[in-house]
């Protein structure tokens, strides 16, 4: 106990302040980054008409498939001293080491850039819908009141879209706090890396929990902000005639296209090309036995988690449909839906401690009977999948609940008057209607599991590796090119739901 107390006071004396300030700057930096990129791109797509608009509407979502830690590897490869850019500069201008200033990518600023580049789609997607659905008569009223275009943006559009933008921003910042790969790789000390180091470096579970609790305070604040803004966003929603996009003149068209090209280039295309180059040209072994083993492990974990997440979400949805609304069910569903806000590191700490306590308890009890059980749950896939479910259940829960709510109770009643029992209603009516959302929510959980780094690193069984963990290990060993095959696999699988999301949003806007 004394030892643990020492660890905590040691942390307070040395690194705690650094964790706090770095986390603060990181969150602030990413907030500025994602809102400026997100709002600008959303405005361009929703309210301006220019050549290539529908293509960019789609392409701007692509960075969502890139985990921040992955573009961190690729930009390190591109921008560090031995990378192609600096080599080119030295070669062209005949500079040597130290002759010129070049910003260091492995820094707090670098981490802010990486995360902004892949997290802005959260703001973009939500703000785009908000801007596109604003009622035309409001702006006509603004015009009559003598507001110019700029004033109409700042006095009408932005305030109306603000709650929705804040929802997107909170989601992006939750991801920022959850990130472990980028900050660890860049050597930036923040909470998530600190929790990891305290636990695995210093072996101190208590101090790690204390750090986690501090981080949790920030997470809960963001969660509250998100929930509050969601309610507010519902309140400011308006129907009526929707405003149409303004055709840009040729100079502005060029600027709009340039902005979109640069964002998509930096957030997706450039890193993707780099990964493809590494995989095809530089990697020593690409599709060897280890790679297939890793892929198999990842697919196994991701499909088990996805399947369970869908089944549990479906059970929750039926619990709500078939019982009268009550506080117990409502709070259960609410709680189950909060896990997405928790960083993988916190979940790892929160899952590991109770499971190991349980294990030791079982072990001791069994020892009385002369049975050697060992540790059953700790370091097993059960614990890992459990942790994934806490983090990703919200995804399937939200999707399936929405789909279930869209089936009106009258449909069930109609089936009943036609002689169908509950089991028949589920089988002949509900499942066919829920099919798409069951599939898409399963897919989203699948991809999220595939990408999840810190929880997997902390909780995986001994000698069990996944694509995400192995690529992180290789990247940390400066074997970026060898990490590429695993990384590009994650990205390619991650593209499936992003493309699906785009396609379904497109078809939705068509039918409306």
């Amino acid at each position, binding site marked *: 106990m004394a030892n643990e107390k020492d660890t905590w006071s040691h942390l307070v004396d040395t690194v705690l302040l650094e964790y706090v300030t770095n986390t603060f700057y990181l969150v602030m930096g990413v907030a500025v980054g994602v809102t400026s990129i997100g709002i600008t791109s959303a405005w361009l797509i929703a309210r301006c008409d220019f050549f290539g608009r529908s293509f960019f509407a789609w392409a701007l979502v692509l960075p969502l498939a890139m985990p921040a830690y992955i573009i961190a590897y690729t930009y390190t490869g591109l921008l560090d001293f031995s990378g192609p850019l600096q080599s080119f500069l030295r070669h062209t201008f005949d500079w040597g080491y130290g002759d010129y200033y070049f910003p260091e990518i492995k820094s707090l600023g670098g981490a802010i850039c990486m995360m902004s580049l892949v997290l802005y789609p959260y703001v973009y997607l939500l703000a785009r819908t908000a801007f596109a659905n604003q009622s035309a008569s409001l702006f006509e009223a603004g015009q009559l009141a003598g507001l110019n275009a700029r004033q109409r943006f700042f006095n009408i559009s932005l305030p109306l879209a603000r709650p929705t933008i804040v929802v997107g921003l909170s989601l992006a910042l939750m991801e920022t706090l959850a990130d472990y790969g980028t900050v660890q790789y860049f050597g930036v000390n923040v909470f998530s890396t600190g929790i990891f180091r305290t636990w695995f470096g210093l072996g101190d579970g208590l101090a790690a929990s204390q750090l986690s609790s501090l981080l949790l305070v920030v997470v809960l604040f963001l969660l509250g902000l998100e929930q509050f803004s969601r309610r507010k966003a519902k309140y400011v929603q308006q129907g009526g005639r929707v405003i149409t996009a303004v055709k840009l003149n040729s100079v502005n068209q060029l600027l709009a296209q340039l902005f979109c090209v640069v964002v998509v280039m930096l957030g997706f295309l450039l890193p993707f090309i780099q990964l493809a180059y590494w995989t095809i040209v530089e990697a020593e072994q690409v599709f060897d036995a280890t790679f297939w083993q890793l892929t198999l492990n990842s697919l196994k974990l991701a499909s088990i988690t996805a399947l369970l997440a869908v089944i549990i979400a479906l059970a929750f949805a039926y619990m709500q449909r078939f019982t009268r609304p009550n506080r117990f069910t409502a709070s259960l569903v609410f709680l189950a839906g909060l896990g997405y806000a928790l960083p993988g590191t916190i979940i790892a700490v929160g899952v590991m401690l109770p499971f190991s306590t349980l294990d030791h308890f079982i072990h001791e009890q069994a020892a009385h009977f002369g049975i050697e059980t060992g540790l059953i749950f700790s370091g097993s896939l059960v614990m890992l999948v459990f942790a994934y479910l806490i983090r990703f259940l919200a995804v399937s829960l939200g999707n399936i609940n929405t789909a279930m709510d869209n089936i009106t109770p009258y449909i069930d009643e109609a089936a*009943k*008057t*036609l002689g169908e029992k509950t089991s028949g209603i589920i089988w002949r009516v509900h499942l066919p209607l829920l099919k798409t959302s069951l599939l898409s929510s399963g897919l989203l959980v699948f991809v999220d599991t595939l990408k999840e780094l810190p929880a997997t690193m902390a909780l995986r069984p001994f000698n069990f590796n996944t694509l995400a963990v192995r690529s992180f290990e290789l990247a940390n060993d400066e074997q970026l090119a060898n990490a590429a095959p695993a990384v590009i696999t994650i990205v390619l699988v991650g593209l499936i739901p992003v493309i699906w999301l785009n396609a379904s949003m497109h078809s939705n806007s068509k039918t409306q």
Partner: protein
Amino acid sequence: MSDSTLSVSQVSLVYPQSPNAVLSQASLTLAQGQIACLLGASGCGKTSLLRCIAGFETPSEGSIYLGKIQAFGEQQVLPVERRRIGMVFQDYALFPHLTVAANIGFGLKNSQIDRQQHASIIHDTLRLLDLSSEAKKYPHQISGGQQQRVAIGRAIAPKPALLLLDEPFSNLDLHLRERLAHDLRQLLKAQNITALMVTHDQQEAFAFADIIGVMHQGKIEQWGSADSIYRQPETNYVANFIGDGVVLTQIQAKALNVPANKAGVFLVRPEHLQLAGNGRFNAKIVSVHPQGHSTLLRGICHIEADTQIELMLRCNANQQVQEGETLSFSVVL
């Protein structure tokens, strides 16, 4: 019970959290092939009564018989799916994932009808409702009127003992409703289907039903033919609710020489008041409401110094009447 197809007796419905009864002591009977309508303002309990008959609501007391089978009573509550009731919902509630033909065939699987006949029943129902060319389409690909016909077809295909319709015309164009209500009546009569519809629209009810039940505050105020509820309203509410007219107090009625009807209600409709230059009474016109085919007038008639009566009168559309004008009329009953 007797040979009636539907017999509802003394059905009440009270929700624990609300003080007012949704239904109180509602009773009605329907014979085989009869078409009835529950008519009332929103919140009068008409839809609740329909849902009690269907089995979606459980009454607090009373009994419901479907033919000789007790659907609700002290002994038992028959589940919805075993009541053999067809229902047409207000928003139709068509299965969006099934074609028109599959929607119509949905209930056949659970009916006692032989499997070999299913295809021919679907075929006949499609033809009956003029939907043959839409058989393979999905609900979102057809018009609102067609959707309504699919909902009717789906409900009648399994040959239910009773068809319930919850405001089936409310999603359709106003000018189509009366015509469609009439057409649906012809169809149900031809198939000898017993039906009960809920609506708030008098024209719809008059065009559709043999019997109309006027509901108010959870009670069936009157259960009778269209003609009887118009000419012989049994309560002041029915007299006021159906058609135009004014219910008088006994003193007012005496002054105007208006007799009570069979139920003791003093009702004066505009058609009872004939405008004539030499009428017995004078009315000062307070408002003029042109209705196209004719003009409705509201006027105040002074009988004695302290007795004044507000009346509704009607004149030809081409007759120019100004507010404030005084017209003389006589009572023709």
